[in-house]
């Protein structure tokens, strides 16, 4: 039996070929930008550290020995290589805690951005497509949320909700979706006026199908780029909230709270507060470098601040 090439089958084969070519172009563009590539690799390294935290460390991140309090970093006088970055006020190895802290930061960041993206994009696409009362209502609400500075809102919510991982993610995502909503809505408004949408309607496709298969792929790109850029911001937010005690509570290692507790001992043990903060800086910078490089490659005309 000769194979029947259906319309959809052929379409997806073509799509696959296009995808592969796009991927090849992308890889080449990445290769041409070594700094961006390094950023991406660093992000990957952090990700691996978070996933394999237990395997690559030998100390207990939660409990330490009080005999080993405030060991200095290995390269300083009195330091030991068993504790490369020194120990904290409870004798816990700092490097181990930092590696475990990666889990918290990445989990909060990815989850928050993920929820913001999904909620914001769905709402934005729907609002932009259907318009009407849905658009009005959600847009007004979004404007209202925008009246709050991000951190103020987050602090407000967390202060009343209480610290903890799920609360944190919810609080951050509740403010975070607005940006994606606006982006998706704006792009949807622009796209729905275009001809291919009209053509699909004429061909008889239903609204939801049009949104999903035709319009969304065009919107996804800018959403993705914005998401990457916001990831770093969310991580800093989490760290700031943990710093003032509203985020992840000790003894769970979270970089923000580690800096906070280390702050009291700045004079005798500067490393306790410094290295966790450095970790935040490195991760966020790597994410930002990669995100901006991504934006450059995918569409240099996109200006997202």
């Amino acid at each position, binding site marked *: 039996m000769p194979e029947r090439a259906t319309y959809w089958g052929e379409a997806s084969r073509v799509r696959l070929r296009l995808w592969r070519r796009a991927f090849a172009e992308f890889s080449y563009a990445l290769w041409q930008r070594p700094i961006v590539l390094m950023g991406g690799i660093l992000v990957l390294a952090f990700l691996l550290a978070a996933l394999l935290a237990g395997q690559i460390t030998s100390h207990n991140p939660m409990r330490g020995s009080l005999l080993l309090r405030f060991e200095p970093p290995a390269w300083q006088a009195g330091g030991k290589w068993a504790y490369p970055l020194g120990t904290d006020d409870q004798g816990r190895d700092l490097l181990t805690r930092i590696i475990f802290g990666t889990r918290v930061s990445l989990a909060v960041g990815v989850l928050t951005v993920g929820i913001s993206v999904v909620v914001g994009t769905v709402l934005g696409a729907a609002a932009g497509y259907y318009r009407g009362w849905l658009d009005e209502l959600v847009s007004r609400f979004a404007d209202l949320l925008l009246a*709050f500075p991000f951190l103020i809102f987050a*602090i407000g919510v967390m202060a009343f909700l209480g610290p903890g991982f799920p609360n944190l993610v919810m609080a951050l995502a509740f403010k975070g979706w607005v940006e994606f909503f606006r982006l998706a809505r704006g792009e949807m408004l622009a796209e729905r006026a275009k001809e291919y949408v009209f053509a699909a309607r004429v061909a008889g496709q239903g609204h939801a199908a049009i949104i999903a298969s035709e319009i969304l792929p065009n919107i996804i790109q800018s959403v993705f780029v914005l998401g990457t850029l916001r990831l770093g911001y969310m991580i800093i937010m989490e760290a700031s909230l943990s710093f003032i005690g509203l985020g992840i509570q000790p003894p769970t290692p979270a970089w923000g709270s580690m800096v906070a507790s280390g702050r009291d001992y700045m004079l005798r043990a500067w490393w306790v507060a410094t290295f966790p903060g450095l970790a935040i800086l490195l991760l966020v910078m790597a994410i930002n470098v990669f995100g901006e490089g991504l934006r450059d490659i995918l569409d240099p005309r996109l200006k997202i601040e």
Partner: protein
Amino acid sequence: MRAVKILERVLCTLPIMLGVAIIVFFFIRLTPGDPVDIMMGRGGAVSAAEIEQLRHQFHLDEPLHVQLWYFLRDAGRGNLGYSYIRNKPVVELLAERLPATIELTLGSLLVSLLIATPIGIISAVRQNSLLDRLSMAGAFLGISMPGFWLGIILILFFAVHLQWLPAQSRLSYGLQLQELTGMHVLDSLLTGNLPALTDSLKHLLLPSITLGAGVAAIVARVLRSSMLEVLRSDYIKLARSKGATEWRVVIRHALRNALIPTVTVVGLQFGVLLGGNMIVEAVFSWPGLGRLVVDAIFNRDFPLIQGAVMIYAITFVLVNLVVDVLYTYLNPQITL
């Protein structure tokens, strides 16, 4: 008439402020537990009768929308609740600390603009030069750095190691200063108190840099990119063809147009200043609103937190209003 249009704009913000108040109202209902306890901040044991009386006083026995009405009415009158932890009306507590926060915020804004403006302009004029690349790398660093960590590092370096600048508070112990506005720098200027002036400036410097760094980074980048775009435009060619000096071309023609999108960004960044305010005040033990809130969080002083959040949000709305109006002055193509 222009004034009427400005008034219109102001009135438009009222619904938003109302919405802000409503949202803040619901914040306090997020907390699990007995509302009276929450209001009291668990400030000690009280008898059952007193609890009942307080419940009535707080209108907690009435339906939600009635409570909302009371809340809004009180807020409109300037009554933001009472802090039982500190035994003072919230408004009073906020007013006490307000000047310090205003001083810090203004100082940070000034620092960030002083850094960002020349860098943004020069980086655009000398695109791809060493200065440009270094500045943009620095700006990148600025947006990736957590504020609280920067503050701590600055303290470590300048206050502890070099001992050049103080690590906390606003004024060294023992210095006298007559308070007029509550803003030390301003007061020492007004009273001609030189030692207090230098001292308060020294205290203001590190916190301002910490808070302003992130904003400076973003503003520098935006200014640079809008300058680059403006410098490519035709009217710059015309200005040069008139025989204008390069200085005039850049500052009078280019900058004037590049400021337009930049001002909007600065307005938005004010939100970052307000938010980061809390963090920086905590790091530097700066006795302002932010520190008050952080302590209040620690003490579970919920009415205070509620009042403070509302004040911050309303300030942000007002600042954006000002920026909006300013924008119409800058861009002649937009009428109010």
